[in-house]
C-alpha cells in the first residue's frame, strides 16, 4: 500500500494538473479536441493516487510481483510515446496545410498582379 504522505502529494499533483488543463481551456489556450487526452490523463493519475492499492493490484493482474511500480513506468512510457507520435502526425498535417496555404496565396497574388497589368495595358490603347 502506498504510504499516506505519498498518496497526499500524488493527489495534489494530479489535481493541480487537472486545474492547469482547466485553466488553459478557459483561457482558450487549449482546444477541447486536445484537452480530451489531458483531462483523461489527469483523471487516471488522480484515481491511481487516491486508490492506494492501485499499483500492486494492477501489477498483480498482469503478473508482475517483484516490483509493481515498473508496470506504472512502462505504461507511462508507452503513453508518452503514443502522445509524441500523435504530435508528429498533427505536425505533419499542419506542415502540409501550411504548404497548401502558401501556394494558394502565391498563386492568388500572381493572378491579381497579372490581372492588374492587363487592366493597365487595356487603359492605354495605341
Amino acid at each position, binding site marked *: 500500500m502506498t504510504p499516506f504522505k505519498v498518496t497526499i502529494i500524488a493527489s495534489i499533483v494530479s489535481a493541480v494538473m487537472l486545474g492547469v488543463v482547466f485553466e488553459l481551456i*478557459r483561457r482558450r489556450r487549449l*482546444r*477541447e*479536441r486536445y*484537452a*480530451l487526452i489531458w*483531462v483523461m490523463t489527469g483523471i487516471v493519475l488522480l484515481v491511481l493516487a487516491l486508490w492506494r492499492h492501485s499499483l500492486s493490484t494492477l501489477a498483480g493482474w498482469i503478473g508482475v510481483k517483484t516490483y509493481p511500480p515498473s508496470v506504472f513506468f512502462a505504461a507511462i512510457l508507452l503513453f508518452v510515446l503514443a502522445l509524441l507520435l500523435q504530435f508528429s502526425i498533427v505536425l505533419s498535417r499542419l506542415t502540409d496545410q501550411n504548404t497548401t496555404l502558401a501556394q*494558394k496565396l502565391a498563386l492568388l497574388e500572381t493572378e491579381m498582379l497579372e490581372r492588374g497589368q492587363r487592366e493597365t495595358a487595356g487603359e492605354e490603347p495605341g
Partner: protein
Amino acid sequence: MRAESEHTDLALPPEIARMRRLAIMPAYNEEGSIGAVIDEIRAFDPDFEIVVVDDGSADRTSKIARARGVHVVTLPFNLGIGAAMQTGFRFARANDFDLAVQIDADGQHDPAELPAVLAPLLAGEADFVVGSRFTGDRAFRSSFTRRLGIRLFALIVSAIARQRLTDTTSGFRAVNRRGIALFAADYPHDYPEVETTVMVVKHRLRVMEAPVRMRERAAGRSSITALRSFYYMFKVLLALFVDLFRPGDAPEEDA
C-alpha cells in the same frame, strides 16, 4: 425534395424585401444534393443570396455550386463545420447582409420552413432563431440514444439560458446583424451548435426557437458515428462547463 403541401400558404412577410438576406451553406462532399438544395432556395425566394462554403471537398461540390451562379468560397482544406460556418458569417459581415440563415447542403433543411425561422427576426423579437424539431406538434424521429443526448444538452442549455430550449443541436438557424457580427468575431470549432446558443445568451442576444420539420438527408451520411459520439458529448459538456467559469462577455455592438 418537394415542399410539403401544407407549407405552400407560408410566405415570407413583405418587410423582408428591404432586407439583404444570405443563406450560408456549409458543404463537405455534398455533390449529390447541393444542386437541388440551391434550386429549392431560389424557387422559394429568388432574392436570397447563397454562399456555399466548400470545406475542402474532394468531389464536385464547388463546381456544381459555381455552375449555378451562387457565391462559392472554397476552403483549401477541411477546417471543420465551425470554421466553415464562421467563414460564411465573415462573408455576410463583409458584404453587409441583414440576415443570415444556415442551411445544410444535404437537403435536411426544407427552404419552405424559412418563414418560420425568419419571422422572429423580422418582427424584431429575436436576434438568433433556431429551427427546433421538438417545439410544437411536429415530431422528429431519431435513435433513442441520440434523442437522449439532444435532450441532455437542451436541459443544460435551458438552465444556462434561463429559458426553455428544446433543440440546441439543430443546424437550421438564422441570425440578424447582431448575430452575424458576433459569429463573425467568434465561433466554436467542432460540433458548434450547442455552444453557439450559449454564446448568444451570454452576449445578451435574444434567442427563440421556431418549430420546423426536418427531412431525411437527400444524400451522404451523418458525420456523427458511434465513435465520434463520445467525443461529441465530451467536447460539448466540457466546453459548457468551462464556459461557466469565463467572465460574462460584453454585449456585441452592431459592427
